[in-house]
């Protein structure tokens, strides 16, 4: 397959063009993207990331200051550069190392990123935070499963993160963009005692899971096994009983959910740190589609009106970091209105609206 051809202005998160756009790829020589300079960008330079060199080191040493940087390094786990290393450059990273992406997946994600409306995403993010700030309480509900968890975001420490909208100099962001989240501590440093203390109730997992690993390729086989054990969650819901930000109990909603529930139980037994709901995430990218595989970039998937996701564990403290997309869930404000999610896409009204293909007359 020939490399995808795009121009530098396709990625709206960078804002006004810089003189230099730098594409960083893996050292194996594969270049998934042919990037052409346009609209004020004078040149596109390529850097490959040698084994043993960190992304931050490479950027600090060989990328011009003020450059716009896109890192697409399949198979490489990328640690975020420090503020000092990044300087005033703008950086976006396609997460292609913590999960095993194919060339087709990367192509599809690059295409989605180029079609993503960054200005619209900024509006959605602003509205989201306005609603959160003006609401005393939040709730996460799954109407099809009938579950509800309360999230009092005024209790304990809550750090809100935005991976969406335009970048300022010195910023770095996930690519494709489009994720908002809340964690109990700074997102990059695991504090074992940190909890989203205000989160209590029942949360239903029904959607694609993601199993991230850290840098050791030897973890890949177990990573794949765990993903396969959890993948039935796509159509077999499992409910987590959560108290003060920690999972107390796992229940399959139907008999078909038993294997995934058992896999979760076993994970919690082996390492109780996975019981902590480390992150409540909200995918708001309405351009990307789900990659039907273990794909880290699925975290930004926002269906039509946003998707709730849960994050358990954080690498390398825990061996894997798990994310669970919950496209059937909704985030509600204290007045009961939907901030984001399934109920925003299909408002709950007086008519019972279903979609079942079972009409017998075919």
């Amino acid at each position: 397959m020939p490399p995808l051809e795009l121009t530098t202005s396709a990625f709206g998160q960078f804002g006004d063009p810089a003189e230099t756009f730098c594409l960083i790829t893996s050292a194996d020589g594969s270049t998934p993207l042919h990037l052409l300079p346009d609209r004020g960008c004078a040149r596109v330079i390529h850097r490959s990331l040698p084994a043993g060199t960190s992304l931050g080191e490479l950027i600090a040493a060989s990328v011009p200051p003020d450059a716009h940087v896109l890192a697409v390094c399949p198979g490489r786990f990328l640690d975020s550069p420090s503020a000092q290393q990044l300087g005033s450059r703008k950086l976006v990273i396609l997460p292609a190392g913590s999960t095993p992406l194919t060339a087709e997946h990367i192509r599809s994600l690059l295409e989605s990123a180029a079609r993503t409306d960054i200005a619209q995403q900024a509006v959605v993010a602003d509205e989201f935070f306005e609603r959160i700030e003006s609401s005393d309480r939040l709730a996460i509900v799954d109407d099809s499963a009938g579950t509800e968890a309360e999230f009092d975001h005024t209790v304990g420490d809550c750090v809100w993160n935005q991976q969406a909208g335009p970048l300022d100099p010195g910023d770095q962001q996930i690519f494709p963009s489009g994720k908002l989240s809340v964690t109990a501590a700074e997102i990059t440093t695991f504090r074992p005692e940190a909890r989203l203390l205000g989160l209590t109730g029942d949360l239903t997992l029904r959607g694609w899971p993601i199993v991230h690993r850290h840098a050791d390729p030897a973890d890949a086989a177990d990573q794949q096994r765990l993903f396969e054990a959890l993948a039935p969650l796509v159509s077999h819901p499992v409910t987590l009983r959560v108290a003060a930000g920690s999972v107390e109990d796992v229940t399959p909603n139907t008999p078909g959910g038993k294997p995934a529930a058992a896999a979760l139980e076993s994970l919690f037994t082996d390492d109780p740190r996975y019981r902590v709901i480390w992150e409540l995430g909200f995918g708001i990218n309405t351009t990307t589609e789900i990659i039907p595989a273990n794909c880290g970039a699925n975290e930004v998937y926002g269906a039509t009106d946003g998707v709730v996701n849960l994050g358990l564990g954080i690498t390398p403290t825990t061996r894997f970091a798990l994310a669970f997309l919950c496209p059937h869930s909704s985030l509600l404000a204290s007045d009961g209105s939907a901030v984001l999610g399934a109920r925003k896409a299909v408002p709950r009204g007086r008519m019972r609206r279903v979609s079942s293909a079972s009409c017998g007359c075919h």
Partner: protein
Amino acid sequence: MSAEISIDPGRFSQFGAATGSTFCLVTNPELVEQIEVLETAPYRRFLTVPMGAGDRFEDLLEKSIPEPAHVLVISPHRFFASPDPELVGQRKIMGMACNSTPTSLAEIRHFLGIMERTSAAEQAAFCDTFFEIAEESEHLAYVDPEHGTRAVLDHLRDGLVWNQQAGPLDWGDQQIVPSGEISVLPVEIREFDEALKLPLEGEITLRGYPILHNGTPSFSRADQARIHSRLAAMQHHAIKATVEDGRITRLQALHPGAAPAVDMLEQMFAVDSRYRIVWEIGHALNTALDILPGNHAMNEVYGGTEGCLHYGLGLTPYTQYHLDIISPDTRVLSSNGTALIGHLDHPTVERVVAAD
């Protein structure tokens, strides 16, 4: 034999992106050689799975259809029973409605073309608008100004289920195709209980295109064709039906030409009184579809230019037949007079495929 039909799965907008999935065509063994799958979309692989006599689709799902997959079922020779939603897994399933009426390869080709022209995004938007207006309405009126009938549905009544067969498919979802219908029934669609009825009162006009679906019990295709041909009198001549508590209590031919259809309906009522129940009201919205003359299940989603109504009597597999009557003269209005289906003040153009 060279293939008579080409399918390009990348053209079915309901499936969404192909990347990472298998495309799987499930069809009858006698058609495998006659249907060619064009490998243009970036699927990981393309697979054809035969579904022969005695094969259950649910078994094929378990044994032969990988995950993740986009699955298209074209099974004119065997009844395709929609699988238990629990078994769909990491798949999106579209099933062509081509077994409940006799369907030739040429007809399958015609409706595949409609599926390619169907926009999932436009259908989703139509549904959102439909529900937005209906939610605000006190009742829905089913009005045929040309024949002077009006019936009212208490559409917010508890127990009614509004089933949407339109818009993009999510993982784990299944859809009957061509898509494009919002139907209301008095209960979940797979159940049938003659004590349940739609809260519909008044008079309705039956004038349009009947579709006579067969169920799973043994029957004669010749009988099906004969019954349909009698009912087809309503294409040009209207019948007024009085509906009380969701049941048709009286039929009246508004023109002598409608008499054969009235007679046949009366005979159906006599054999199985459950045909009197207006079991389904279908609000069809496929505007890419022109009606193919004849008894074709896939005409059911015909949406004209502003949506088109059909009434459904009986429910297979419980009754021998399910009779849909596409009624282009009927408009559906909200209590403040907004049209949900059809145009407020003029009839819609009937779009029918010209005979060869």
